[in-house]
Every structure is written in structure tokens, then in C-alpha cells.
């Protein structure tokens, strides 16, 4: 019995190696996220016994929780999980591309671009067009800004450091544009825009979940196809180039996946910060360095973080519903500083 399981396609273009330990970790995380899922459905302004929740989910409930669970809590919890897993994988890919543990979608301007799209929509189009189209505006903003960042970083190819620096600059410009629209708008739009900017799952409905689902179901598996590239890229661009990886093209494709995941997450839940930053870190602590193992682990951890943050956000200051983004930042930032400190000599 070996410690590793190898998965390889016939041509060898898709190949990865999984540590068996990763499988255990994955199973444990999966069970843990189910546990959080049930807790999440049971707590809130009215508490429902966890056993009653499970009964209800399997269709043996008396129907008394139909409204609370089916309409109010289930979509919200599912969306939290989807958004978290999208952000986790997006951050994982980005940190791999840049080979720097400080990169994340919120720092290099993807979130900023989505914010510009969303705020323009809130200020000018809410009322005229259905609010349901807002995610589309956010996604459009994220895409445009990513294209701008990528093209500005191009100088006989894109280097990771240039990509991050330009991303930071463009993010600052995006924030200025957001501020401008907020200052020029009326109070109602201002409040609404802030709620969105901080990242909240308030008012999530089943439609949101169904719209978010394809992004996660398509792009996370697609990212697994790049396991071989990502594992090789760990060794540096030069080594990857020497091993026959088309570095620039692969980087563009990976960036596209990362932007799609982060853009979709931000579109549906606003600027939930630091999940893309810390989920991959925790995943690496638990599951080693094989990309194929890190993708599902980061997804689960991201999902768990956002679900937990949303539980706290809904219940800590009842009856107030605080944006979950405040808690992901509040927990995420100190943890992040601790991680940096712990790994200072690595």
C-alpha cells in the first residue's frame, strides 16, 4: 500500500497525485460542513431542534417549518456555502498563479470591479430594472476590471508581481468610483449600496441559489483539469516553462476561472472579504500541496467559513442582521496575520 493515489488520463495531460491523508481530511471536512449546515438551519430568531431539521429535510416533518426552513433559511445557507466555496477556490488559484500567499480576489481588484458594477446598478437602475439583474451588473464589472488589470500588466508577458501591483492600483481606482457614486446618490441608495458592499446574504432566495450553482458546478471541476500545471508552477515559471507548460496561456485560463468564481460569488453576496485569502491557507495546512487535493478542501473550508460567519451575523445581535462580511473580515484578518507570523521563516 502506498501513501499516494495517482490519477492520470490516457494522454497524461491531466494528472495528479492524491495523498491518502487528504481523503480523510476531505471526508471529515465534508461531515463537518453537513453539521454546520444543520446547525445553520436550526438557529435564528426562532430555534428549531436539529433533529426536527433533519426530519424535515428528509421529508418526515409535519410541515410546520416549511416557511422558516424552505423559504428563509435553506436558500441562505446554501448560497453561503456556494459563495464560500467559489471564493475559496478562486483565492487558491490566484495564490497559485501569483505564487504569493497574500493574493486574493478582494486585493487585486476583482471585488472592486464587481462593486462598481453593482453600485452603478443600485444608484441608477434599481426601480427601472428588476433587482434580479444586479448580479449580472456585478459580474460584468468584475470581468471588465479583470481585463483592464490583465492588459495593463502585459509587457512582453505578464509577471505575477506586476499583476498584483496593477490590481492594487486598479482596486483603489474602483473604490474611488464607488465612493463617487455613493456620495452623489440619495440616502436610500447609499444604505443599500453599503449593505451590498460589506457582503450580506440577507434576503437570499432559491432563484439566487439556482443561478449561483452552475458557476460552482462548472468552474470548480474545470479547475481540477489544471492540477498538473498548478503543481508544476509551484516550482516557478522558469521550471514550468522548461517542463513544457505554456505559462502565459495557462495563466490566462486560470485567471479566467478565478475571476468567474470570484465574480459570481461577489455578484450574489457582495464583498465578503478575506475568505479567498484564508481558505487556501487553511487548506494547505490540512491537505498538503497537491492542487487536486487543495481544490475540494479549499471549497469546503470556504463554504464552512461563510456559513459560520452568516450564523454569527444572523444571531449575535438579534434582531439585527449584520452583514456576514464583517465577521469574515473580523475573524479572517487576525487569523491571516497569525498565519503570516507563524510562517515567517518558511
Amino acid at each position, binding site marked *: 500500500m502506498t501513501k499516494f493515489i495517482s490519477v492520470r488520463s490516457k494522454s497524461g495531460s491531466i494528472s495528479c497525485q492524491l495523498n491518502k491523508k487528504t481523503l480523510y481530511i476531505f471526508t471529515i471536512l465534508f461531515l463537518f460542513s453537513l453539521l454546520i449546515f444543520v446547525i445553520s438551519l436550526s438557529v435564528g430568531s426562532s430555534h428549531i431542534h436539529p433533529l426536527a431539521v433533519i426530519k424535515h429535510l428528509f421529508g418526515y416533518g409535519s410541515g410546520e417549518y416549511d416557511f422558516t426552513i424552505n423559504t428563509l433559511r435553506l436558500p441562505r445557507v446554501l448560497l453561503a456555502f456556494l459563495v464560500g466555496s467559489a471564493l475559496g477556490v478562486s483565492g487558491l488559484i490566484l495564490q497559485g498563479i501569483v505564487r504569493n500567499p497574500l493574493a486574493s480576489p478582494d486585493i487585486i481588484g476583482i471585488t472592486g470591479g464587481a462593486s462598481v458594477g453593482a453600485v452603478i446598478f443600485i444608484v441608477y437602475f434599481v426601480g427601472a430594472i428588476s433587482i434580479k439583474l444586479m448580479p449580472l451588473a456585478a459580474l460584468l464589472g468584475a470581468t471588465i476590471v479583470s481585463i483592464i488589470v490583465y492588459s495593463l500588466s502585459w509587457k512582453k508577458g505578464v509577471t505575477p*508581481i506586476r499583476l498584483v501591483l496593477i490590481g492594487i492600483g486598479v482596486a*483603489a481606482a474602483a473604490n474611488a468610483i464607488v465612493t463617487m457614486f455613493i456620495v452623489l446618490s440619495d440616502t436610500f441608495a447609499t444604505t443599500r449600496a453599503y449593505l451590498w458592499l460589506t457582503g450580506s446574504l440577507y434576503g437570499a432566495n432559491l432563484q439566487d441559489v439556482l443561478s449561483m450553482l452552475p458557476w460552482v458546478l462548472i468552474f470548480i471541476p474545470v479547475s481540477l483539469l489544471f492540477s498538473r500545471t498548478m503543481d508544476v508552477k509551484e516550482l516557478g515559471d522558469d521550471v514550468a516553462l522548461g517542463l513544457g507548460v505554456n505559462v502565459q496561456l495557462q495563466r490566462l485560463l486560470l485567471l479566467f476561472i478565478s475571476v468567474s468564481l470570484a465574480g459570481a460569488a461577489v455578484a450574489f453576496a457582495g464583498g465578503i472579504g478575506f475568505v479567498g485569502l484564508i481558505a487556501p491557507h487553511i487548506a494547505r495546512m490540512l491537505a498538503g500541496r497537491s492542487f487536486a487535493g487543495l481544490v475540494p478542501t479549499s471549497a469546503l473550508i470556504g463554504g464552512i467559513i461563510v456559513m459560520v460567519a452568516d450564523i454569527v451575523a444572523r444571531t449575535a445581535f438579534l434582531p439585527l442582521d449584520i452583514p456576514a462580511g464583517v465577521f469574515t473580515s473580523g475573524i479572517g484578518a487576525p487569523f491571516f496575520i497569525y498565519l503570516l507570523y507563524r510562517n515567517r521563516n518558511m
Partner: protein
Amino acid sequence: MGNLFASTNSKVVGLFFSLIIFLFSFILSIVLGKTPITLQVAIDAFLNYDESVTEHIIITTSRLTRAVIAAVIGASLAIAGTLMQALTRNPLAAPDIFGINAGALFFIVFSATFFSVNSLVHYMWIAFIGAAVAAILVYFLGSIGHEGLSPIKIVLAGAAITALFVSFTQGLLVIDEQGIQSVLFWLAGSVAGRSMDMLLPVLPFIISGVLVALFLGKAINILMSGDDVAKSLGQNVILVKVMIGIVVVFLAGGSVAVAGSIGFIGLIVPHIVRGIIGTDYRWVIPFSALIGASLLLLADVAARFVIMPQEMPIGVMTAFLGTPFFIYIARRGLTRND
């Protein structure tokens, strides 16, 4: 371009030119606006003030204060940026990029939300504390790891700390809906609608910061030749660095307390100045003060016209000016060998 003002005499002439540019910007800031005022009327407003003339009232109650605040804040931010770029040896260093503005802002919004602080003197001290906390965090985060302080690490640390404080601030504003409108001007950064009373408590700190900065010029020149060289030349490197840090906190924190978060002035000005007169910090610092003041005055004038009849928040104006500049530096590379 560094040779253009190589000799001391030419630098004195250059400084004189900057002074003229500054005075010109100051006058523009007083005469231009929604109500255009002729220069003659403006001079009259100071020499023979007449309460029945609307223009005179506009000048004394609004335009003059606004111009003075813009000049002071512009100079402070430019010097803060110059000192930070020297201290971290990083061309992208500036109070806004390294999270100092965001830190000061968060502390202000936090104390306004939870402790109902509304005295200006308190805001000022809170802004100093916020600026110091952010500065220490970013410097610490950027320095850990085996290679020590690296340019890319400290920029990322600055971005992460900015993201942290910004999201905290947004969270507070969501909790306290009434508070939003009252602190909104701080978020956007503005030099309009402030009374002189807002500047006065901060002014002693800013002036002493500027003076200390001017005296630090020679010490910074030595520091720039490397920590080891500076030490062997008998410099107390730690003391100089701590002094620079304190001056930055006073200048940047004080600016945020008066005018909110105004970005990019601290980034752009040192580059312009070093491009023109070279890297002698005894000269870079006074030049930065004058050019910074002029730039913010002109940005403020432009902010009155771009979206007439409304006014653009000045922080947005400077961001539009500064982003292309930031991208230019980022493309050029942070270190010589990039």
C-alpha cells in the same frame, strides 16, 4: 532630468518657481468656482471688506478656508509620502496605499458610532492612534519572513490592512444607518465645507511634523545609503526611523482628521519632485510640500467643475489623477532588477 537643478543656486531658483506655482494655485482656488470672482474683487475682500458684497462673503467664509485647508493637507500628505518612500525604499509607499488613511478613518467611524465622540480634538487623537496602529501593523507584516522588508510584501500587507479596515468601516456604517451621512465626507475625502476650527487643533501637530521633516533631510540622505553605512557613519538609525514614523503618523493622521481619506497625493508628488531635483532630501522635502499643496489646490479647483453643478469629492479626483501614475510605476518595477 536630475541634472536640471543640480547646483544649489538652481535649486533655490527652482524652489522660488514652486512658490510661484503654489501662489498661483492658491489664487485660482479663491477666484474660480460656481460663482466666478475677479482678482480685483478678491483683493478688495481682504483690503476693504464689505459685508454687502456677496463675493466678499463667499471668499471669507468659504473659499479662503478651503484653499488654506487644501494647501496644508496637500503639503502634509506629500511630505508623509516622501518620508514613507524613503523609509521603506519603496516607490509605491504612500499613506493611502499602506493603509494609514483607512486605519485612521476606521478609528474615527468606530468612535463616532460606539462612543458618540464628536469633538474635533478627540477625532484628531483618535485619527493619530488609528494611523499609528495601521502603520505599525503594515510595517510589521511587511517585515516578517526571512528576507525582511521586501517591497512587494509591504505593498501587499498595505493592501490587506486597507481591505480589513475598509470592510470594518463599511460594516459599522451598515449597523448605524443614521451615521452614514455624517461620516460620508470623511470616506470620500473633502476639503469643502470645513471651518477653520477644524484645522486649528491639528495645525500645531502638522507644523511641527513639517519642521521635523525639514530637519530630518540630512539624516534621510545618510539613511538612504543603507542601514549599515548609516550606522558606521555614526547615525542612530533606529531613532531616525522612529522619528520618521512619528512624523508620518502626525501628518497623515492629522490630514485624515481634517479632510478624510485623500489618496495618491503622497504617491505622486515625491516622484515628480525626485524627477526634477534629484534625491537630496534636504531639498526634496520642501519641494514636496510646495508641489503637494499646489497639486491638491488644483485638484480641488478641478473638482468644482467636472460635474457641474455638483462637486466631485476631492478624494475621487486625486484617485483619477493618481491611478495612471500608480500603474506607470508598477509597470516600471519596484526595484532596479525587476
